[in-house]
């Protein structure tokens, strides 16, 4: 049989350069702030400069009188057109007004809104609003807050408890009844117990493009178009429609180019609701674009969980039990997913180990700070950090190699699917293989020798390692109030080009490239002939969005399924055209032909053209080549990895310097290793940022001290060594692609492996644990004062 040499390479699995980048780096992309609608007016928010206070007076007279000011609204006036904001979690929650009514609960909370002809007038007018407050005590310290002191922030939430203790793990019934037998037994049998209080500090997501919204209500049509820098335009559409008394058919939500989200652009914010409601009320387009000072106070923060961990083990390293008491600082209000994020920390407390007994409790606490919500990793880096730090402490206590300790306790490949005590079902994994590759790449033995040699010379050099497993590919519809599926549409155009839509809403993930690669392979056409559309609810019929490392595993699968449906139909047209059996057809090199006889086939474009002018129309077929698919995953995916670092601390100054970072990640099948590496790089950067230089700091009055890039450090290229990346591949059975998701992975392994290296570097001072960030002064105190 004659064979053909493929002219078009198969693209899935290849290092294809991102198709998005030329427009992004040449300034040819349009973000919300680039979009203009005739007649649009601008919003500015007057924000509270106290963390907790009763509004005694708002004087808007001067602002309203300014030239160019269209309208001024106080919180009470906004409350007439914007109902309290809904949340996406089932927990009880206090009313949260988009603009504060009577009481402000964090510095930066909006208290009034100005509508003006440009953003400059709007800003000046906001400054001209005079607000008086009766100051109330600011609740800043998390553990003090739990005692109801110095104040109770929401009157129906005694002791500032937002979500009271939710027990989880061994011996916990579905009704939260608790049987302590197993956990007590584990700790009674322990030969060694590690106990440590750990802080997973608050971070600011700091996307380079801040938030922004343009709402355009057209009274004549009764429809709303809303552009927003969001990760999930379909959720935005649902919420904007519900909040404005409109049907979902009457709202079009558009996420244009989005310059990063990192989880903070999942939430639908008050500014979006206010812009939409004012546009509807005044009948004019309304734009608001966040500035950087606002972003620090008005965009949700991430992390901020305190963990009290106890790890019980035998002296041979066998882990017997884990207790983890989590206290999450959720800030002043519940946002869309706020309350759910720390539950992911609970869910992942089982980590990569066989732990006979686990008990996790979680308390979520209100404070007078900016609300928290998802931030890259969202609950999973916290779980990884707590458990991996405890494992590292145990290894140190037992004088065991940290890799050997992990090896002794790993969940074994034959145990998958592995149902954890926390309710997760790990889909697939081979943790030992992954760790072994990381140890090999790091030259673990030599690395230790290198560290020892450096220490012998008086240098403070340390090495650290960490394993992680995360939950990605969110998820079955039971796990998300929006539904957990994703949607895609694929159309073969008349000229043989392909247009596809996805409900995933990429904002840096590169799905235009990876999805293009998939369809190019599926149909045997050039990548340049495929266009991926996203981010517009009037073009993309349905969707959930991009978060939880789900776009490839869930969105990619929906695309694959939709493509398969269209391909099957196209094969029927081709079969008719070629007088062949559709099952014998091959799509390759831009042609459709009978297997083994490429010369006798038709070009892909010829078949497409026939489908749109079907003379004669094959029996049983409708004209055209367009179909769609929803993909509902049966489970989440559970990627994993092993990260190793080497770090040196300056003995005189305490300054840490990261010398090496070796990562081996397993995200299942990779569509595009180049993009995957980019995602790992970004995740590592933010993980290293958390470990070493990032920390949101409030003073005792609840004022944000790190309110600008002069005081809040974000990592830059010069902060890193060259990352050494590698992969193992354990495909997931959850989707036909075998892909697990990788967007957040880098944030998980990096923090515990870096802190472990810092503790190792300072081992001569007897330090057992250091809370992040690794502030030079903190390390200097350990070196020079012997305390942590």
């Amino acid at each position, binding site marked *: 049989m004659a064979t053909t040499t493929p002219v078009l390479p198969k693209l899935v699995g290849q290092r294809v350069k991102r198709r998005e980048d030329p427009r992004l780096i040449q300034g040819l992309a349009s973000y919300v702030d680039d979009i203009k609608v005739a007649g649009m007016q601008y919003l500015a928010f007057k924000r509270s400069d106290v963390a907790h206070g009763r509004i005694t007076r708002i004087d808007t007279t001067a602002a309203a009188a300014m030239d160019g000011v269209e309208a001024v609204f106080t919180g009470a006036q906004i409350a007439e057109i914007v109902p309290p904001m809904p949340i996406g979690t089932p927990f009880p929650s206090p009313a949260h007004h988009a603009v504060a009514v009577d009481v402000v609960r964090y510095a930066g909370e909006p208290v009034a809104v100005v509508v003006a002809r440009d953003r400059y007038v709007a800003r000046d007018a906001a400054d001209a609003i005079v607000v008086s407050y009766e100051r109330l005590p600011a609740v800043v310290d998390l553990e003090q807050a739990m005692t109801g002191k110095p104040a109770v922030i929401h009157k129906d939430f005694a002791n500032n408890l937002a979500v009271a203790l939710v027990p989880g793990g061994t011996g916990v019934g579905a009704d939260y009844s608790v049987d302590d037998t197993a956990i007590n037994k584990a700790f009674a049998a322990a030969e060694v117990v590690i106990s440590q209080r750990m802080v997973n500090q608050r971070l600011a997501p700091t996307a380079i493009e801040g938030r922004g919204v343009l709402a355009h209500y057209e009274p004549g049509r009764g429809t709303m178009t809303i552009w927003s820098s969001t990760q999930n335009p379909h959720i935005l559409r649902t919420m904007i429609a519900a909040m404005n008394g409109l049907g979902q058919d009457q709202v079009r939500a558009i996420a244009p180019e989005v310059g990063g989200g990192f989880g903070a652009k999942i939430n639908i914010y008050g500014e979006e609701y206010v812009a939409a409601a004012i546009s509807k009320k005044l009948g004019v387009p309304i734009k608001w674009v966040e*500035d950087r000072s606002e972003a620090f106070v008005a965009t949700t923060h991430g992390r901020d969980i305190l963990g009290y961990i106890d790890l019980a083990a035998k002296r041979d390293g066998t882990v017997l039990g884990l207790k983890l008491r989590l206290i999450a600082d959720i800030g002043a209000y519940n946002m869309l997913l706020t309350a759910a994020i720390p539950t992911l920390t609970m869910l992942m407390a089982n980590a990569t180990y066989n732990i006979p007994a686990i008990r996790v409790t979680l308390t979520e606490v209100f404070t007078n700070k900016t609300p928290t919500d998802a931030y890259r990793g969202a609950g999973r880096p916290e779980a990884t950090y707590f458990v991996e730090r405890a494992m590292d402490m145990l290894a140190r206590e037992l004088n065991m190699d940290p890799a050997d300790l992990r090896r002794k306790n790993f969940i074994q490949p034959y145990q998958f699917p592995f149902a954890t005590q926390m309710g997760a079902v790990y889909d697939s994994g081979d943790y030992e293989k992954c760790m072994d590759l990381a140890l090999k790449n790091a030259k673990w033995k030599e690395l230790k020798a290198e560290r020892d040699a450096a220490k012998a010379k008086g240098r403070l050099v340390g090495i650290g390692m960490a394993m992680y497993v995360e939950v990605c590919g969110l998820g079955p519809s039971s796990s998300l109030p929006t539904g957990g599926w994703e949607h895609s549409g694929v159309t073969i155009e008349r000229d043989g080009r392909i247009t596809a839509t996805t409900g995933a809403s990429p904002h840096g993930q590169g799905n235009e490239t990876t999805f293009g690669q998939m369809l190019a392979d599926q149909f045997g056409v050039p990548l340049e002939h495929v266009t991926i559309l996203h981010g517009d609810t009037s073009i993309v019929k349905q969707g959930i969005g991009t978060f939880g490392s789900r776009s490839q595993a869930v969105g990619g699968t929906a695309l694959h399924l939709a493509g398969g449906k269209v391909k099957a139909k196209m094969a029927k047209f081709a079969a008719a055209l070629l007088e062949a059996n559709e099952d014998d057809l091959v799509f390759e090199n831009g042609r459709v032909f009978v297997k083994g006889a490429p010369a006798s086939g038709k070009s892909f474009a010829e078949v497409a053209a026939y489908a749109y002018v079907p003379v004669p129309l094959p029996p049983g077929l409708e004209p055209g080549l367009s179909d769609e698919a929803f993909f509902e995953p049966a489970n989440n995916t559970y990627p994993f990895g092993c990260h190793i670092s080497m770090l040196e601390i300056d003995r005189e100054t305490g300054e840490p310097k990261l010398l090496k970072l070796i990562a081996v990640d397993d995200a299942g099948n990779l569509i595009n290793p180049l993009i995957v590496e980019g995602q790992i790089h970004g995740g590592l950067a933010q993980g290293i940022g958390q470990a070493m230089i990032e920390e949101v700091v409030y003073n005792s009055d609840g004022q944000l001290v790190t309110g600008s890039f002069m005081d809040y450090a974000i990592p830059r290229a010069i902060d890193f060594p060259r990352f050494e990346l590698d992969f193992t591949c354990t495909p997931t059975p959850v989707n036909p692609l075998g892909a697990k998701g990788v967007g957040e992975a880098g944030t998980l392994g990096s923090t515990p492996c870096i802190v472990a290296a810092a503790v190792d570097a300072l081992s001569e001072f007897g330090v057992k644990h250091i809370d992040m960030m690794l502030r*030079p002064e903190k390390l200097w105190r350990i070196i020079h004062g012997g305390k942590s």
Partner: protein
Amino acid sequence: MISTAFEYQRANSLDEAIKKLQETGGRGKLLAGGHSLVPLMKLRMSEPGILIDIARIPGLAGIREKDGKIEIFAATVHHDVASSALLAEKCPVVAETAGEIGDPQVRNRGTLGGSLAHSDPSADYPAVMLAVDAEIHLKGPKGWRIVKASDFFQDLFTVDLAADEIIGGVQFAAVKSAGYAKLHQRASGYAIVGVAAALDVKGGVITSARLGLTGAGSHATRMTNVEKALAGQPLSAKTIEAAAKIAGEGIKHVNADIHASEEYRRAMIPVFTKRALEKAMARS
């Protein structure tokens, strides 16, 4: 991050700029690189009614050697100082200091004159100007006036510069055996503590020394006790170590913020004094 409204004017000569300063009274503010002023304006901590742009005044930027002295004109951006071949050869500490300021974007816009006039307590340039014993050349309505760097920096954001005066440039004798060492604040890049040290060495003996300290107090200062301890001593690691130990002694007020407590900052003064001196020794 939106400033209040302001008027923009551009001056084409120092005299024109001075005239504009006089005409605008207290409302006019000079703009060169804008890397101190513009952030303050965006935070509305500075609300000048009129900006007088002096960045493009002909002859106000450049580095040259004249009569055995180095001259750097006020509108020279940090990048040009950092990459100057003349400075690298004759007085590397100044180029080194400029290269430690902020990040590439800042160094491509920020100017020497702007940094000196603003006198941020954590700025890098003031320390090195003290160490090279620079003369700061100021022009006012009555002509030129020369102020020694050691007299120029007076207090927090306060320098010996009248409201109608402009820095034209600095002049100093090149000194090779000099170094700058700083502890970086990781967010801003400013010095938590920065020390510039310059040594005059003859026949292996330190004849005189000048040390400028920034970041620790309200403004950059000379560390005269260290200078005295070094003078007349043989140039050696031992000398440096001994002299560095007393660095910071007797300083009454030391800054504290979230990045560094007073105790830590005080401890860092001898550390970075030693490092600056070691660099100076390596270049001698």
